[in-house]
């Protein structure tokens, strides 16, 4: 069963400045009196998310709304299991695919083919399965002979096509997206959208963070409104959009 359950989950970052991050000041903290005190005060804690309670089940189409810095991206990372909460708990059941960074793990010195394999193995395939996937990605991305050249020779659009092709080749249970992805020129974008819609429709849980109400209306039915790392409100999408953006 596909499920995400957050119980009082918080994500806190301690920002160490250059001084308190070094071992020297940590030793001094133990040894010295005065310096120790000030070194301790140097530490700034950022509460990126505070006491989040959330239970997502199969069929959820959730929108995250909120201003810049409200915690949307951190929330996506928390839901994807990148951050284990610094307090509280997060239980994530199902294969997660975060379409947050399509070019993650791409090595510019290796060929497109090798990068497809690397990325697919990252997504949980064996090397043999990944190799079998190459022709399909090659056809989709239309890279042709470029596939055997190092990725540093690719234009950014070509690299995106490749990354997108692999990232969407495996059907995940949970999809996390930061804004709707758009890849390539008009013709290719159409093809990409169809491919993306297919895996979005088949996913158990879909979470999208976006500033565009249009996008959210198209894919989501529920929403939560984040502000300063806390859930301000949650409920049907239209109600939350009204609350968050004010009546238009």
């Amino acid at each position, binding site marked *: 069963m596909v499920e995400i359950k957050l119980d009082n989950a918080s994500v806190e970052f301690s920002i160490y400045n250059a001084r308190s991050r070094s071992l020297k000041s940590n030793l001094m903290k133990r040894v010295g009196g005065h310096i120790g005190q000030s070194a301790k005060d140097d530490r700034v804690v950022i509460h990126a998310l505070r006491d989040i309670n959330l239970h997502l089940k199969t069929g959820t189409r959730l929108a995250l709304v909120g201003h810049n810095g409200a915690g949307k991206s951190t929330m996506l990372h928390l839901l994807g299991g990148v*951050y*284990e909460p610094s307090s509280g708990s997060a239980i994530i059941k199902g294969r997660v695919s975060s379409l*947050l*960074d399509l070019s993650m793990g791409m*090595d510019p*010195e290796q060929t497109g083919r090798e990068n497809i*394999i690397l990325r697919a193995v*990252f997504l949980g395939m064996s090397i043999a399965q990944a190799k079998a996937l190459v022709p399909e990605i090659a056809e989709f991305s239309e890279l042709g002979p470029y596939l055997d050249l190092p990725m540093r020779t690719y234009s950014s659009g070509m690299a995106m096509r490749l990354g997108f092709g692999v990232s969407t080749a495996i059907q995940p249970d949970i999809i996390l997206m930061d804004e709707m992805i758009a890849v390539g020129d008009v013709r290719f974008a159409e093809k990409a959208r169809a491919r993306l819609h297919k895996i979005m429709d088949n996913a158990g849980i879909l979470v999208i963070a976006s500033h565009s109400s249009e996008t959210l209306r198209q894919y989501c039915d529920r929403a939560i409104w984040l502000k300063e790392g806390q859930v301000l409100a949650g409920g049907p999408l239209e109600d939350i959009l009204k609350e968050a953006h004010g009546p238009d």
Partner: protein
Amino acid sequence: MHGGSYYNLALKDIVQGFSKWQLAWLLGIGDIKQRYARSKLGQFWITLSMLIFIVAIGVVYSFLFHQEIKSFLPYVACNYVAWTWLSTSIIESSTVFVQAQGYIKQTPIPRSIFALRTIIRNFVNFLHNIIIIFLVFVCMLHPISWNMFLVIPGIFFILCCGFFSSLCLGVICTRFRDLPQIVQAIMQILMFLTPVMWPVSSLSKNALAIVEYNPMAALMHVVSKPFLGIVPDMSDYILSSITLLVLMIGSGYIFARFRARIVYWL
């Protein structure tokens, strides 16, 4: 969270890491390819520069220590190849997670994969460097004996050592970014305290302790001695096992306790 679950999660991380060994393999090999991308000799540059170093040191020190070059050059070659592997494994274990921050900050991934990646990378380097040993043996007409098969347990010791050192040093060094430099400096000192380039026989009786109680020397010897055709002493194995055990317990605690914090420190 209570103590037990820390250990369960850490163990789960390690089990998953091993089950994804193919990813660690691709990453490790990718590192090597990346370092020597576009160079013709590629990986063999390391081997070549090490060969030059070994021959130079071997010749000079054989005069300094009044050793016969025919036996001293193979001695230095075996020691230096084993030492380089051991010390690089430890030095690079301090940056495993910092190096992998691009991945760790983007996807949920077992942290132990990156420890495996580092030991794979260093092991492949070591396999290349073995060529030097055979090259020197051929030139110096050094006999090859069956004792050479004893390198297998030795290799196992260094692999484990690199793995556990990644899990503890790697975690601590992610939090304290000055430590990798300190580790590197300590390794340099340890190299002079370990009989890599000088014969143990050149030590006076009182100074023998720096070899007898030196874990780095023991770990080096379990690999370098079998290559030379010598059976390592029991004391080498005992000291290596103790070192490994201490490292295992220490890394078990540190990794379990701070594994979840790694991503916050990056």
